[in-house]
């Protein structure tokens, strides 16, 4: 297996995530916390994120389905989701979460629904890209840690 090629692919995918705004500086912070004692820390945290975010998004879906919209509850759920996005550096999702919360404050249900559709799309794309990235890293082996792309 061509490990060099796999590592290059992983590095390229990672660079793309930053260049296209999917991830921000906070993701670097997670990478900096990873070490020999905790070699899969970033992937573990990202896995936790997608587990928790799926649950929160299901709650938001249910709340949006109700006839009487509880904007306070929607805002609380979205605050939690935004917090998790911030913690892993999920920048585009975080931006959409902010937009959703603004719609909650305005009690603009149409705006909430549009914003939530965007959040779902961003969530799905980010999940796909990060799953591909970590799969490449696993295939490439534990030797190399990708360097930060030039800013």
């Amino acid at each position, binding site marked *: 297996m061509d490990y060099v090629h796999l590592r290059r692919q992983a590095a390229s995918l990672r660079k793309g995530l930053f260049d296209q705004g999917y991830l921000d500086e906070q993701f670097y912070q*997670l990478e900096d916390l990873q070490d020999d004692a905790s070699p899969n820390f970033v992937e573990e*945290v990202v896995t*936790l994120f997608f*587990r928790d975010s799926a649950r929160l998004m299901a709650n938001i879906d249910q709340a949006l389905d109700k006839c009487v919209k509880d904007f306070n509850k929607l805002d609380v759920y979205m*605050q939690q989701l935004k*917090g*998790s996005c*911030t*913690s892993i550096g999920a920048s585009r999702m975080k931006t959409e979460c902010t937009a959703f919360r603004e719609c909650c404050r305005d009690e603009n249900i149409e705006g909430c629904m549009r914003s939530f559709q965007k959040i779902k799309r961003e969530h799905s794309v980010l999940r796909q890209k990060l799953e591909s990235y970590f799969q490449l890293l696993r295939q490439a082996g534990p030797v190399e840690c990708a360097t930060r792309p030039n800013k």
Partner: protein
Amino acid sequence: MGSGDCELHVLAVDDSSVDRAVIARILRNSKYRVTAVDSAERALEVLEMEPNVNMIITDYCMPEMNGYELLRRVKGSRDLREIPVVIMSSEYIPNRITRCMEEGAEDFLIKPVRPSDVSRLCGRLRN
């Protein structure tokens, strides 16, 4: 508090599994013993069972009992009030910060918490 040679024990409280994992990692990288729990209620149970907690670091927004209420319970307890309590929040709300500091919080950190935030806090603890 522990002597300079003893491992300091930090109780981390956060209902977010992501944030709990991150703060625990930051603390462990700094060589602290960490107990991480997902609620203020669970934190109080730990404090009752475990006599040697050197610092509590807690999220503000949690369901049921929030970080402010946990702070009040700790500072209102004769057995626990000397334990420094640090509050974390993803939102910068000046009134919230003032209220926590007036209630006796050691510090108030805006998330995402960085290793440098923890180094600064724990440096004060060791001194």
